[in-house]
């Protein structure tokens, strides 16, 4: 059972930069890459630092705190010291409007 929330227009998002937002009190980030938008929980799985303070490099997001890296699309760990994946959320874009699904 999921809830779709309209969060913004795709033009509101700069390319390759993590943008933090809150949807229904869930802290998440949106990362736009071209005409795709990825959505992940705004917490590194290592020590829960905000990923929104990190940087995006290609298809990965790097946490500023200890250098952990995750795949933007799947949340999978790409680099230590993280050990478990970061939660990702489904994104739908309709007519430029970005929708995010939060269970």
């Amino acid at each position: 059972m999921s809830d779709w929330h309209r969060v913004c227009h795709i033009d509101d998002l700069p390319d390759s930069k993590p943008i933090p937002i809150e949807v229904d009190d869930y802290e998440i980030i949106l990362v736009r890459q071209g005409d795709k938008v990825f959505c992940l929980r705004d917490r590194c799985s290592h020590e829960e630092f905000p990923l929104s303070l990190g940087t995006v490099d290609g298809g990965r997001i790097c946490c500023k705190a200890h250098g952990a890296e995750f795949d933007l699309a799947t949340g999978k760990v790409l680099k230590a010291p993280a050990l478990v994946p970061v939660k990702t959320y489904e994104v739908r874009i309709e007519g430029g409007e970005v929708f995010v699904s939060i269970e």
Partner: protein
Amino acid sequence: MSVAAVQELSPVEQKLRALAPDPNLPEWFSAMRLQARDAYFSSAYPDRSSEAWHYGEAKRFKLDGLDIAHAQPGFNGKQYERICGLTGLPRRVSCLSMLGPRVTELSQNDALLKAGVTVMALRQALALRSEQLRPYWLSGLVCPDCDPIIAGHYALVDNGFFVHVPKGVQAPEPVHLIMESGEPGSVVAPHVLVVLEEQAAADVYVHFIGGSDAERSLQLGLVETHLGDGARLSLTKIQHLGLRTDAFTREAVRIGQDGRYSSISVHFGGYRVRHELDAELTAQGGEADLYAMHFLRGRQCYDFHTHQNHQAPDTRSNLLFKGAVTDRARASYQGLITVAPHAQKTDAYQANRTLLLSPEARSDSSPQLEIQANDVRCTHGSTTTNVGPAELFYLESRGLPRETARRLIVSGFMAQVADHIPLPNVRDYAYNYVMERLE
């Protein structure tokens, strides 16, 4: 939902900006309010890198998007009834209720009056007993401008309760105080000041009710107690706020020589709840027993932060915080025991016990010690478990269905704290709530 955050002052913040001394309140009180107001606007909210907010979220207690609560006559009549049910026949106890500037006296108790016990609205006390309150208000037990949340409280506070028990008096009846949280989109800042003179004794209950189940409201509360030498206080707080009400409570107590403070906190409601408990054992022989029981569900987040501060020799403290977490809730506990170098023969104990009852439940616990005296006994413990499979099996093998067995174990877990509540009605209420939720 807009992506860019807009930094604008909320209605209550605008009122704070415009705050001027109130001619109906003592000058020293207004002076502190203005100081706190300035501190609120100039301090930065702590983030996760601050040790004290390692698990909490300070920005949840900001005044964004809120206005001061409006008193609504007849508001929460059902809750009043329930509480009167708890307290016994209304005529037998002293019961005051407050929402914002309006205080309703539900009942007054002659025995308390005769004994010289004062139970009155803070505003009234400030008007009539200004000089009596002043040394306590300005005692520094709580620093009014050291952090923005407390500063927010002191800037907003304009009412609450004052309870005073004179020297040598044992309050013959319990005192019940009801604090209501306001409508959605509102903030209340209630302040309870309890003063027990030397050798006084009392049994006080504070009920936190109101707020909303659907939209955010905020309560910034402060409960401070000053215990004279040999005084004994039992203070039970029951928080049953609406499920979208964020609540911050700082509970502080200064315990005099051979004084005894017994605190029981029961938390069932609220959304993001932070309870800070600061027990200062500043004189020899002081004792503090600090209990808490909480039951979390939905997406509630309870963040407890306690400090057993031993600054004098021969002091004793004992803390037991127990919680059961269901659904996707999260219970966090950070507790510190400090023992000053001269606080020899301190006996301090701290235990945090959590039951995780669902796959998405989460618990954080950090019991901490900073000990600088060596002739002491300091112990702490923390456990987090599910309902023990061995205990379940034992009960099931005696013919109890699994769910009943589970309920029995959880209620037994909670009973260890609930049993310390002096009034049977209140004790049963706490206990029954847990049982109902487990069904």
